[in-house]
């Protein structure tokens, strides 16, 4: 009896579907706004950019950079969540595990209170996020590897510490505007972001993505547990450092441009696994696509519910995303 070899047809169909959905979401997001553009106009500008027209300027200087940054943030958070959940074999982990968001929030709160120029804030957030991740990783180090429990404990402890500092700064700041600026950053937003923000963040995100994809085959070995992975020639220590490094870089890049956008890094890996199973080669790529879709859609809704006012992106994701996620995850039990 000869059984057929495994085919990845259904997984590849799911991946293609995710790509199609991503294209549709991006196109919709670009066309929606104070001035609505028909699909044809969007397509024409994308194929032949013409900055001498008003449409060209709106699309290329406002809409497209904004959608590009939303994609970057979503893809980074989705991938970072996927990496950490895969390595720790724990579906409750999110990319802020390594303390990146709390560290960045702390630096931003102190920075805003101290009157640091707003142009310098993204860099400040990025450096603080990475520094926190480094401290957490150093605390979690055992021998040549990383202890999972210590990583989670160190991340949670440091996050709690920094959250306390943020609250203190908000309470002690003499001016209400300072507190509001800090709160707005904590709520997450892409308002006013342009190409210059995208450029810096995308360099770090690209390094993170490259590192993550290089780890994919070895992450597949880790599905059998650390001992078996080692028996398959996987350098487990190196994978762990690579995952923590890539996830921290990706999260820091995202946090630096968007503030704290929660929930994406938690839900996207779950949805991804439902679509394409748990082959890291597929999940890493798909989590980027789905993360980008989720944040692009959320950001578009955030800026079009009550224009020109914008809802905080992170708040919107929690308020609408969480109920939908709970419905999707728990309806099976009723069936």
């Amino acid at each position: 009896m000869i059984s057929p070899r495994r085919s990845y047809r259904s997984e590849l169909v799911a991946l293609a579907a995710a790509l199609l959905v991503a294209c549709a979401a991006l196109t919709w997001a670009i066309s929606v706004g104070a001035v609505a553009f028909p699909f044809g106009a969007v397509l024409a500008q994308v194929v032949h950019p013409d900055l001498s027209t008003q449409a060209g300027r709106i699309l290329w200087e406002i809409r497209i950079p904004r959608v590009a940054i939303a994609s970057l943030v979503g893809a980074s958070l989705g991938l970072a969540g996927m990496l950490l959940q895969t390595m720790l074999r724990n579906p409750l982990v999110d990319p802020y595990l390594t303390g990146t968001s709390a560290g960045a929030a702390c630096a931003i709160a102190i920075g805003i209170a101290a009157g640091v120029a707003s142009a310098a804030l993204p860099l400040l957030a990025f450096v603080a996020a990475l520094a926190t991740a480094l401290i957490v990783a150093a605390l979690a180090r055992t021998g040549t590897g990383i202890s999972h429990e210590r990583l989670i404990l160190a991340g949670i402890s440091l996050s709690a510490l920094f959250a306390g500092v943020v609250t203190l700064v908000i309470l002690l700041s003499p001016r209400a505007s300072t507190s509001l600026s800090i709160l707005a950053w904590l709520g997450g937003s892409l308002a006013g972001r342009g190409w210059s923000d995208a450029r810096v963040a995308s360099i770090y995100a690209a390094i993170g993505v490259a590192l993550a994809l290089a780890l994919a085959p070895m992450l597949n070995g880790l599905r059998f547990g650390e001992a078996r992975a080692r028996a398959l020639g996987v350098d487990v220590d190196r994978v762990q450092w690579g995952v923590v490094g890539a996830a921290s870089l990706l999260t820091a890049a995202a946090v630096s441009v968007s503030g704290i956008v929660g929930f994406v890094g938690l839900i996207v890996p779950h949805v991804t696994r439902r679509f394409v199973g748990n082959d890291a080669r597929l999940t890493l790529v798909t989590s980027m696509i789905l993360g980008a879709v989720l944040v692009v859609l959320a950001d578009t809704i955030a800026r079009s519910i009550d224009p020109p006012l914008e809802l905080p992106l992170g708040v919107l994701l929690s308020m609408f995303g969480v109920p939908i996620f709970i419905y999707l995850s728990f309806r099976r039990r009723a069936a």
Partner: protein
Amino acid sequence: MIAIDAVALAYGGCRILEDVTFTVRAGDVLAIVGPNGAGKSTLLRAIAGAQPLDAGRITFEGRPIAAFAPQERSRNVALIEAEGAPPEGLLVEDVVAAGRLPHRPWWRWSSSEGDRRAVDRAIARTGLAPLRNRPFAELSSGERQRVWIAMAVAQDARAFLLDEPTSHLDIKHTFETLALARRLAHEDGGAVVVVLHDLNVAAAFADRIALLGERTLLACDTAAVVFDEALLARVYGIPIAVRHEPNGAVLAFAVPPSRVVS
């Protein structure tokens, strides 16, 4: 193929084995037996290069096993540890295919024609063809053990190190698993080292038996030689009787306190 030379091993800062010397030949099945805590699994992991040595050296075809790069080591030596948590959402074929990981440079994502042939060969060799497309999580313990062995075969390893492969298996699956291990040695020319608890199973399936106890290697020979009533009784701390059957089989069993063995 594998030479263990004056090896000492420590576990948690405490020496558990000293002065262990023996060799494993290609085409041979060697069983490691001994009381709980004698260091059987630790020794097996040391042979696989997964456990640092406190003293002595272990060589694979003349080269110290510690000098192998991780992937290179896995291309030569397959360590099959006792069952852990099963991987979720994988088919039998996916698990076997993971055995090709050590043959793949990090930048190559997909399996080559050689990889696919090796997986087909491993599945055929272990009789897994009917289970090939079944989810791994649905298999019984005996079937899972066969899949782990198939993974090792797909590795193209020349030494197979099995840690208590029969601990949860009934008598039929024990037989099948160890018969497969014997074929890997006797027909395919591999070196097989298997940690076993059951002395009689070891005697039935292994060509040679290494008895660990009293923090060292006490004997390494055929069952007929190693199974000495006085030696076994000393090592296990209970009265043990040994029978030599006319067909050459050797049996060892504990003597219950109330029974007199003639």
